[in-house]
Structure formats: structure tokens, C-alpha cells
């Protein structure tokens, strides 16, 4: 069993219901292949750093998956055909960092960062 972090970027004009459909679709694929979803995060609509297929924004969905490598093969096969998606990335990790949330609560993260710097001085 391996641990994977999987992120997909959807087009800017997908409605929230469509995003739910996407997450359901891919979580079903994971469950089919005997995988386990540890956590799903929705980072929401974020500004892209550069234009991809005439999109200036993209909605990000992040999965944390526990399972074998077959899941990833199946996921990426389906994602490469999906027209609603702009990018996807899979990263194999040794440990999940379930506490750090870099996107959902921006203000709290800034405060933590500030404290760290303050203590160093």
C-alpha cells in the first residue's frame, strides 16, 4: 500500500454542482480499485499563474489516497480524456500532512508564519 496526493484543476466555468460530480466520479474510481480516500480538500477558485486553454482561473480539488499504483493508472487514464480538467498531478509521499492547510484558511496560516518569524528574532 502506498500513499498518494492527487490534485486536479478544473476549468473556471464549471459550476459547483459539476465540481461535486467530478469529485464523486473520481472517488468512485478510487473505491472500485480497492483504494481508500483519507481526505478530500477543495481549494476553490484560484487565479492561475499563467493562462491555460484560455482559462485565467481554475478550481482545485485535492485527494489524499491510500492504495496500490493501479488506482493511479486508472485515474490518470480517465483524467487525460476529461475535457473539464486542465491539469492533474500525483505525488507519492511517505507521510500525510493532515494538519497543514495552505489554501482553506489563509488568515490563520499567515498568523502562524508571523509568529515563527517573530520567535526567531
Amino acid at each position, binding site marked *: 500500500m502506498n500513499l498518494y496526493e492527487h*490534485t486536479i*484543476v478544473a476549468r473556471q466555468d464549471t459550476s459547483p454542482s459539476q465540481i461535486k460530480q467530478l469529485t464523486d466520479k473520481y472517488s468512485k474510481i478510487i473505491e472500485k480499485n480497492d483504494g481508500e480516500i483519507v481526505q478530500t480538500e477543495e481549494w476553490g477558485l*484560484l487565479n*492561475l*499563474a*499563467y493562462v*491555460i486553454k484560455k482559462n485565467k482561473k*481554475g478550481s*482545485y480539488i485535492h485527494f489524499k489516497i491510500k492504495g496500490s499504483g493501479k488506482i493511479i493508472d486508472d485515474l490518470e487514464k480517465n483524467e487525460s480524456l476529461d475535457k473539464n480538467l*486542465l*491539469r492533474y*498531478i500525483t*505525488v507519492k509521499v511517505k507521510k500525510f*500532512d493532515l494538519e*497543514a492547510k*495552505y*489554501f482553506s484558511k489563509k488568515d490563520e*496560516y499567515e498568523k502562524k*508564519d508571523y509568529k*515563527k518569524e517573530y520567535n526567531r528574532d
Partner: protein
Amino acid sequence: MPSKKRSDNKKGKQSNFAKLSIFQPNKYKFKKSCPLSVKGAPVVDYKNIRLLKKYMSENGKILPSRITNVCQKKQRELSMSIKRARNLALI
């Protein structure tokens, strides 16, 4: 002829002094420890954009470790995660 010899001597002395100034005092001044391998340092991750942006130039290039004093191991992690973030258009 003699004038040339003098100039040669002067040059030699100057370069020697220059070398001294390079090697002796600065050795201690410019040595800094790696900011990412200290205790309590943040984890290098492709999701942590605020951290990655510190180690990039304004044009989005990766800064060399000789400027940022990051150790070799962490520099590899940094460049890896910066490239991942680029692919996701986060940076």
C-alpha cells in the same frame, strides 16, 4: 626594463594582498547555516507557495543556493517542488 620589473613586483604584491583579504576575514563572515535544515524549519512542499516564493526571483526563476545558503539536499527538494507548483500553475 627596470620600470617594468617594478610594475611586475607591485602587481604581485597587490594580488597577494587581495587574496589575503579574500581568504582570511571573509571566511567567517559569509558562512551561514542552511535556513531550511534548522530545527522548527518549515517543510518544503509544493503546496506551500509562500515558502517557495521566497526562494524564487521576481521573474519566477529558482534562486541559486550560493545566494540563499540552502544546503544541497534541501535545494533539490525546493527545485522539485517549485517545478510541481509550476505545473499546477500555482506559481
